[in-house]
Each structure stands twice: as C-alpha cells, then as structure tokens.
C-alpha cells in the first residue's frame, strides 16, 4: 500500500492482509540497494498469523518516492514519521536496516517491543572501490553488492522458491531503484558513527542473526555489536551469505517466529 509521509509517497507491503493497528506490529527494513521484497518469505508469514505488517521501501527504492535519504540518522527519523502513532513495534532489520534500527531504537526506545538484527555490525564501513562505483558506475556497484552479498547458494542460483534465482532477482531489484539510491545508501552506511552510543540505549529485547558465510559483515564487527547490546539473543545460520532473508528464509523465519512470538504474542 502507498501512504504519504512528509509529503512523499511511501510504499509498504502489508504481507497480503489489510493493516490493522489493533494487532501487534512487525516492521521490516531492507538493506542497501534492496527493497521490501527481500522479506517476502517472512513478512507474509507474520501477516497471516495476526500481526500487522509493514515491509517498507525506503525513499527512492522501488515503489517509494525519492529522493533517497542520505544518512542513517535521517532514515531513523523518517521511520519515526512512518510509524506515527504505532507503538509496541517488533522491528526486523537487515544489514543497513540494522543501523537504522539501532538509531531508531536509541532515539525512540519506548516505541519498540523487540528488535531483530540480521547480519549487522555496529558500523558498516564501505570500501572506496564500491563507493566510487556506486557513484560513477551503478551497474558495477550492483554486481559487487550481489557478488559479495550472496553466498554459495546464491551464486549457484539455488533457492527455496522453486524456479527463482535469488541472485538475479536481487540484481533486478537494485536496477529498479532510483539511480542514486545505492550510492546514497552506501554513503549513509559508511558515514554512520553512532552505533556504539546507540546500541546500549536500546531497552527492548534484541535478537542478532549472524550468517556463517557473510562476506559483507566481518564477524568482528558483529561481535562488537553484540558486546554493546544488553544481553541479545544470538543465533548463527552457518551456510548463509549476507542476504539471509533470501538465502536462508526458513531458518530466518523460524528464528524470527520464536523471538517475536515470545516477545510480542498475537492472539
């Protein structure tokens, strides 16, 4: 569905059920260059189990009006405008979305019931080659993102949805964004420095999902994130690359289900 935030059209899928804010809310945030479809094997599941779901497109991504936002902090404030009067939110985030979640959780801790962080560190420094490519040669940058982002299963075009190639699908999603979206995302990640201050301020239960074959988030960065959070639940999916929601959707969904069902049960 589309709705207006700060005068701009924003898109979110509701997982196939009308959004009913009397139900516990689950919000999904995508990573750099991606869109809401990265969560399509999780969002629909929660929508059909009595949760009110919003899987968002950040500004400038697929169905949401641009321009793309330029900092993690502005994305956190934008998210606060999106959720408006909603509280008791279970926030689920992937990669760049995790930085937005950390910042949102530190600024608006009272709004959250739980937070699930999938493949993230406290910060996400981006190498100069990728930053340069995102600005000058988006197609090369997309190839780097999907090349490094997906693990062995992605590169072998395997996947849990029969007939679908997740690595090609990811490429097409990135091509469908506004031309400067990926560069804006990567610059925002690279510039974000507030993770160490933000993480300890989060009050809600936090879950961290780690991918064993993640080449985009060094394990050291994830360990640092875990160290700054208050007793997070940590789970590792050994065979997945960075794009866990697509590469290991069933394991990811099972972990989210266990965590969200227990922290924010739906009747």
């Amino acid at each position: 569905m589309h709705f207006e935030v700060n005068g701009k059209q924003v898109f979110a899928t509701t997982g196939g059920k009308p959004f009913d804010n009397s139900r516990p809310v689950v919000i999904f945030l995508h990573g750099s260059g991606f869109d809401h479809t990265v969560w399509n094997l999780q969002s629909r599941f929660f929508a059909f189990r009595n949760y009110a779901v919003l899987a968002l497109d950040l500004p400038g991504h697929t169905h949401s009006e641009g321009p793309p936002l330029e900092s993690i902090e502005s994305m956190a404030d934008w998210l606060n405008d999106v959720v408006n009067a909603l509280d008791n939110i279970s926030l689920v985030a992937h990669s760049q979305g995790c930085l937005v979640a950390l910042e949102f959780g530190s600024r608006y801790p009272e709004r959250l019931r739980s937070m699930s962080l999938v493949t993230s560190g406290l910060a996400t420094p981006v190498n100069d080659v990728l930053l340069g490519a995102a600005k000058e040669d988006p197609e090369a940058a997309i190839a780097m993102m999907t090349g490094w982002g997906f693990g062995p299963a992605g590169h072998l075009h395997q996947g849990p949805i029969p007939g679908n190639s997740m690595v090609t699908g990811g490429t097409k999603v990135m091509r469908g964004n506004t031309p400067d979206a990926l560069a804006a995302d990567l610059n925002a990640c690279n510039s974000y420095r507030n993770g160490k201050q933000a993480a300890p301020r989060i009050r809600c239960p936090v879950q961290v999902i780690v991918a064993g074959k993640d080449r985009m988030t060094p394990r050291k960065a994830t360990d640092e994130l875990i160290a700054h959070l208050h007793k997070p639940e940590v789970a590792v999916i050994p065979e997945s690359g960075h794009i866990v929601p697509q590469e290991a959707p069933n394991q990811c969904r099972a972990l989210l289900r266990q965590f969200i069902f227990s922290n924010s049960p739906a009747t």
Partner: protein
Amino acid sequence: MSRFLNFDTLSLHAGQVVDPEFGARAAPIYQTTSYVFPDTDTASSIFNLERGGHAYSRITNPTVGVLEQRVAALEGGSAAVCTSSGMAATFCAITAILGQGDHIVASTQMYGGNISLMKNTLPRFGITTTFFDPTDVNACREAIQDNTKLIYGELIGNPGLDILDLEAIAAIGEEHNIPFMVDATFNTPYLCRCFDYGANVTVHSLTKWMGGHGVAIGGVIVDGGNFDWGTSGKYPTITEPYAPFSGINLWEEFGPSAFATRIRAEAMRDIGPSMSPMNAFLLLQGIETLSLRMDKHMANTMELLDYLSDHEQVSWVNHPSLPSHSSHELAKKYLPKGAGSIVSFGVKGGREAGKAFIENCELASHLANVGDAKTLVIHPATTTHSRIDADALAAAGITEDMVRLSVGLEDVADIKADFNNGFRAAKRFA
C-alpha cells in the same frame, strides 16, 4: 564463491543442491506426485506462498526446479517455469497477462505452431494478433493498438531466418509500456541472452538445442524481471489482488519474479501443463553440454554453408551468417558466436527435386523437429507449415523448393557425403 559463475559452470551446476542424504552428484529424479508435510503450519505456509516448497508435482517438483533455476541462470532471468512443451510455455506466458479484448503484435516469421496459436486459437478466447514483417521495425510500431499488451517474436525467424532487431523492438515496447516476449528456441542463451538487449520474457522449446538429444519434450518460460508491470495499470493479473491466494498482489510481493509466480499460481495449477521429472532430468543432461554442442553445431553449419553455396544443384542458400542475407549485420550484432544451425536452401528442380533429395538422404533424418544432435531435413511447405494458408506461407518466406536443414553434430564429411547422394537423386528434376 564471491564472483558470478560463467556460462559453462552454470550449465553444470546452477540450481542444484547436492543431495544431502546420499551425496548423489547428478540431480536426482524425484518421481513423486506429492510431498509429506512435516506439520500443518508448514503445509499452510507453502499453499499460501509464505514460503517456498513443494506440495504437488503439477505445480512444482524438485527435479524440474533444478532445470528451471538452471535455465533462469543461463538466461539471466529472475525466475523460470518449466512446462510440458514449448507450445505450452507460449500459451501459458501469453494467457498470464492477456485476456478477452486484448491484442498481440507478432512477427510473421515464426514456427507454424506459434502462428496457428495466434491466428486460430487465441481469437476464440478474444485475443487477436496483428502480424508484422520482422525486417520492418516501423511495421511493428504501426501495428500497436490501444489494447496491445504484448509484442512477440522469434530472434531467428522460422523458417526465413530473418533476425529480429531486439533493441529496436524492445524500445518500442518500452515506449508503449508493453512487454516484449521472445521465443529464443533457435538461439539458446549460449548464442544470445535476449534480456541483455531489452527483451522482458523468453520462452523456449527445450526439446530442441537445449536438450539436444531429441528424447524429451519440454518448454520453459523465463521471467526477465525487468518489466514494470505496475505503472501502466494494463496488467491487472500481475498487479491486482489474486483471489485464489488470499488476494495476493504478486507485483508487490514478488517484484521481479511476479510474472513467473502468476504462471506458477494460475497456469500450472488451473491448466496443469507440467513437465515430468524424468523429462527434466533428461533435459538437464543436455544442458550440461550446451556450449560444446552449440560450438560444434556452428562449426558444422559454417562448413555446410560453404558446401551448399558452391553446389551446382543448389539454387539458393539462406542463413544469416552469409553476407547476402538481409539480416547479416543484425546477426553479427546479436549472434556473434553463430546465427543458429538452421539452414534453408532450394534444390534446383523445385518441389520434386526437393522431395527426391530428402528421400535419398540416409544419414540425415526426415522428420519434424529441429535442434537434435543428429542432422535433420524437412520440406516445410508440406509439413511444419502445411496448415497455414498461402498468404501466411508467402509472408513467412516459404517456397515450394525449400529444404530446411537442422545441422547436427556428425562428422561434417559424412553429412556432405550423404547430401551428395540426395543431390544425385534430385539431378533428374533439375
């Protein structure tokens, strides 16, 4: 594995998870109709498209799934759906987005089955077609109507072998927000990946070069994932709620694979032209050697083009690799590895000479197929295109003396020796 795998590697590995229990290296043949669910929640999740998985082999099957993902990988598509035949693929792809009152713009130079589908069958369902000369891009543009929802063609036209100008036709589609669907059977993704030039959907008869062995019928639809189904409002089957799956909006939920998902959710379920696991396995064996075979097909084709061009009993030879062919420049652009292994030529002496040639070839098989490992010959006017009328025959560039040759993988010296026998028998009609 951090870099994209190349074509030959994908031909062997894409889509397959090595059997976790027994370690079988080959893709197992899952000869089963149905699948045991671990619990009711998993079952309902699969039926409701909340998770991937298999419920019933009419809709998905693990062996067929390997083939689908392999072809999607080779084509650079976001998803693929296999069907029982190439014609089933074409029908399912068209009817996924068109219905009563809609219109197709299609090339005149296509397989007779495609022409018959659009000329005779689809009108019964309220879908009409305007055909255009594939060598005339403006004719394509001028054929577009307010209700046109699809542009359709074959990259290498059958049997005239005119090459469709993919980029020019794709630009027309983009201008009018109409998807461009290409029957890529004759080129295979080894010779040309049509999505790289703006096509939005490809369909294949896998029976031909992709399988290569001539032992299994099958088709596939590949979703390029590069068409905006949402902006125009013309494709409600993709962008509006779909009642049988709790009102799912496929465009919103599946994005670049929305079109393929519609085919899976509707055509495979409600019509059911599914591929058998055994055929999927056989076709996978063929695809493992696709590049090797296509290179040999092309090498033999070039040798036979020289042989036929120099033969005194051959009145004309038609192939896009020949500088004399009107599509030669387009062939160089889109098909630099070779413009396919179909050759047409005229035998001096007309219909009777052509018939004598075919009947006296012993190695080359006289049958209605193309793309086999074995060399095939046929007389289109009396076989593959026999059920289309004279005007359409002429429009397709078919003459009575035409022999269509599908060049195989035999030693080319043996093919020439066989043809020499055919020409000797045809000589009395020259």
